């Protein structure tokens, strides 16, 4: 169990980074709480695995320091950091039995055999491989193998943190739910710090207390699922989280009103905007209501996805998405209104607050 401090960490894979673009990971400076469940969410290539490997010590950062409970571990080798990591693809020791696979990390650390036996038996039941203990790991299916990988991470009770690198990629959807809730339960019980890399927003949102959204080598927002949904601090977070993502429309801001195309929309506040910035208005499809009043839109397509309908439309000559209830009515001459509370204003892609 440990608090993790990332102090001005930057990383470049090339030897001599010249410009900002050479960094796979741009400056990261954060504190992650002891016992927290963090999900690192972002598209492929955004630097989330790099950050994870820096925490586990598989990569030494080009710059900056990493602290576990205030102790500098930047140059400490992986084996001495007391962390566990589960990889995207199952890593198992082919020639060992399932039992020995799980006992391996403990035996390497000279844990007494009675304790090894107790812990391994507990984990083996938990991952549902009870009947397989004496079988060699070679003949197992991909998700059984991945369960062993997970088990090897969980078997050490004293770890500072467990890191998961998209561990459920190879698992069947149904099994994903089971494993995810097992991991959550374990986290509650043992209270280890948990960092979970994924590109699946559902996974991140259901799993973590805090979601760390990464984009292009930097952390764009750390927040609870609700914060990410209601107040995305970067337009990328808006796009990336939500299905469909946030509507982002170019807007001219004048005091407390935003002009989108020919329409002018009243805002509840006066955004603080530097001169010359590109400004945009963001509104989630959930907060647009379709009716006979408001601003006119032209509907292009209606997708019925079960519990609700996604209406694709053109508003001020821009495509927007609107979520309408399953039994919601779609009028012949459709108009939209935006929920004022749910409007976010962005300057150069970053969310801006109220003018002081």
């Amino acid at each position, binding site marked *: 169990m440990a608090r993790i401090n990332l102090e001005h960490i930057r990383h470049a894979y090339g030897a001599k980074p010249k410009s900002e673009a050479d960094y796979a990971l741009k400056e990261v400076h954060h504190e992650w709480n002891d016992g927290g469940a963090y999900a690192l969410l972002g598209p492929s290539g955004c630097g989330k695995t790099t950050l994870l490997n820096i925490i586990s010590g598989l990569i030494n950062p080009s710059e900056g320091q990493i602290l576990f409970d205030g102790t500098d571990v930047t140059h400490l080798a992986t084996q001495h950091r007391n962390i566990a990591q589960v990889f995207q693809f199952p890593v198992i020791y082919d020639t060992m039995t399932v039992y020995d696979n799980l006992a*391996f990390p403990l035996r390497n650390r000279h844990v007494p055999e009675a304790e090894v036996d107790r812990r391994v038996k507990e984990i083996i039941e938990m991952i549902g491989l009870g009947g397989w203990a004496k079988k060699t790991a070679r003949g197992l299916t991909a998700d059984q193998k991945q369960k062993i990988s997970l088990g090897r991470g969980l078997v050490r009770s004293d770890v500072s943190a467990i890191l998961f690198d998209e561990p459920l990629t190879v698992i069947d959807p149904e099994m994903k739910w089971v494993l995810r809730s097992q991991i959550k339960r374990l986290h509650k019980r043992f209270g280890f710090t948990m960092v979970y890399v994924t590109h699946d927003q559902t996974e991140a949102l259901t799993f973590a207390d805090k979601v760390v959204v990464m984009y292009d080598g930097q952390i764009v927002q750390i927040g609870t699922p609700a914060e990410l949904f209601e107040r995305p601090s970067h337009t990328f977070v808006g796009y990336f989280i939500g299905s469909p993502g946030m509507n982002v429309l170019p807007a001219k801001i004048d005091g407390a009103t935003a002009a989108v195309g020919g329409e002018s929309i009243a805002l509840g506040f006066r955004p603080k905007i530097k001169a010359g910035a590109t400004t945009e208005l963001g509104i989630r499809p959930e907060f647009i209501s379709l009716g006979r009043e408001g601003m006119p839109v032209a509907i292009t397509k209606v997708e019925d996805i079960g519990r609700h309908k996604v209406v694709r439309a053109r508003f001020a000559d821009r495509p927007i998405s609107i979520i309408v209830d399953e039994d919601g009515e779609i009028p012949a001459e459709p108009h939209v209104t935006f929920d004022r509370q749910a409007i976010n204003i962005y300057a150069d892609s970053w969310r801006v607050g109220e003018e002081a």
Partner: protein
Amino acid sequence: MEKTWNNNAWFMVLPVLVLVAFSAVIPLMTVVNYSVQDTFGNNEFFWAGTDWFQDVLESDRFWDALTRNLIFSAIILAIEIPLGIVIALNMPKKGIGVPICLVLMALPLLIPWNVVGTIWQVFGRVDIGLLGRTLAALGINYNYVQNPIDAWVTLIVMDVWHWTSLVVLLCYAGLVSIPDAYYQAAKIDGASRWSVFRYIQLPKMKRVLLIAFLLRFMDSFMIYTEPFVVTGGGPGNSTTFLSIDLVKMAIGQFDLGPAAALSIIYFLIILLLSWIFYTVMTTSDAKG
């Protein structure tokens, strides 16, 4: 489901069939033919039955040569397999060192057998050879022409020099196919260097090692050219392997019948031993 018979398919396999017939089956049958008959030239043959086989199996000459073969192969495998693994483990995995090492490793394999023999024959000579002269200057009494032990050492060192590369290259191919995640997981699990080798690298190399083992066994068991060039089977009969004996018998003495019988016995021994090794190694593989 009804199977479709298409006799045209036979035309497709015919070239291979003809090739294999001429390169393997027909020569082998010719040998079988010689082994059960006796001839005094003039293309006249007399039925001899299993006489030649009995002669061969009862002769000390055969058993002595076979023993030499087995000892030679055992020594070769005991040196080349571990040495090959060690070298492969220590070869660079990335960077400019990789092609350099690979080319260096491949060099001995590119040299024809008789040239390898000649190189070592000259290299070891006491009068003009670099090795022979150096050892003599160091006060070591080395002479592969007179001393059987020295002859054996020369042949073994030569074979190690020539063929360890093959084991290295095969093992290296097995090693580079291991994903990084395995090494990373091992680090996280706190595995020692030995555990990494024992539980990750060795299991992943198992298949290529089986191939390396079989190739080196068959090749060393059939060794002919190098000892023929270096020692000619001597001193005395100390390096007369089955192959050398066979050639002496067939071409030197023109004893075609016994030579043919010996060929077949030799062939069956290699086949049998290879099959045993293969079975043992693959069943242990299945059991894990």
